[in-house]
């Protein structure tokens, strides 16, 4: 293939970042969308979706971590089994800034609200659930 000047050119295609919703998450997101008052959490979810569509996970201001760091208080072998399942299902979570971000001083921010997702690949995620950590308890993945 050549251009008007006869020089060779090639078509470069870039992998597209793709976001899937679980059926439950689809229902949840739709319910938020239909609320007469727009809630902050919906904008936080959209902020992350739009960032992922443009950049993947790279560069997001909130902490992103695999969901395998369970408390040591879970008895064995249950704990190891749960961790194995979380790894097999590629479960991750991302801090999305609801109600706000807090700087950790470690190059990323955290928030009470997180979005749980399945990291199917670097280019594809499936959104699963929104969760919050209890302010009176230590979150399991704060460094």
């Amino acid at each position, binding site marked *: 293939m050549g251009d008007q000047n006869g020089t060779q050119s090639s078509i470069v295609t870039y992998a597209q970042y793709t976001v899937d919703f679980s059926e*439950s998450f689809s229902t949840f997101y739709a319910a938020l969308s239909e609320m007469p008052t727009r809630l902050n959490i919906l904008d936080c979810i959209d902020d992350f979706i739009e960032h992922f569509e443009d950049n993947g996970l790279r560069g997001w201001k909130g902490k992103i971590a695999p969901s395998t760091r369970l408390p040591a208080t879970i008895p064995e072998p249950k704990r190891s089994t749960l961790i194995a399942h979380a790894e097999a299902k590629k479960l991750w979570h991302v801090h999305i800034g609801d109600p706000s971000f807090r700087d950790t001083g470690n190059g990323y921010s955290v928030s009470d609200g997180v979005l749980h997702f399945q990291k199917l690949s670097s280019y594809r995620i499936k959104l699963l659930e929104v969760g919050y950590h209890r302010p009176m308890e230590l979150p399991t993945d704060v460094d």
Partner: protein
Amino acid sequence: MRFKTNTEHNHHHNYDEVFGVSLSVLIARADEKSVTMPSGLTREQRREWAIKTARKVQS
């Protein structure tokens, strides 16, 4: 306000929770069918898509 996708969550503390969601719930969510979000939508378009998609899922 705090939200979750439905009422399956236990109101008591579950020690397999990751940020307020039981790992077994997350695994179940991961096993659900997926709907792929069209790319490049505005927020309003995405929300319209989600409402139509959820109605299809529920029907």
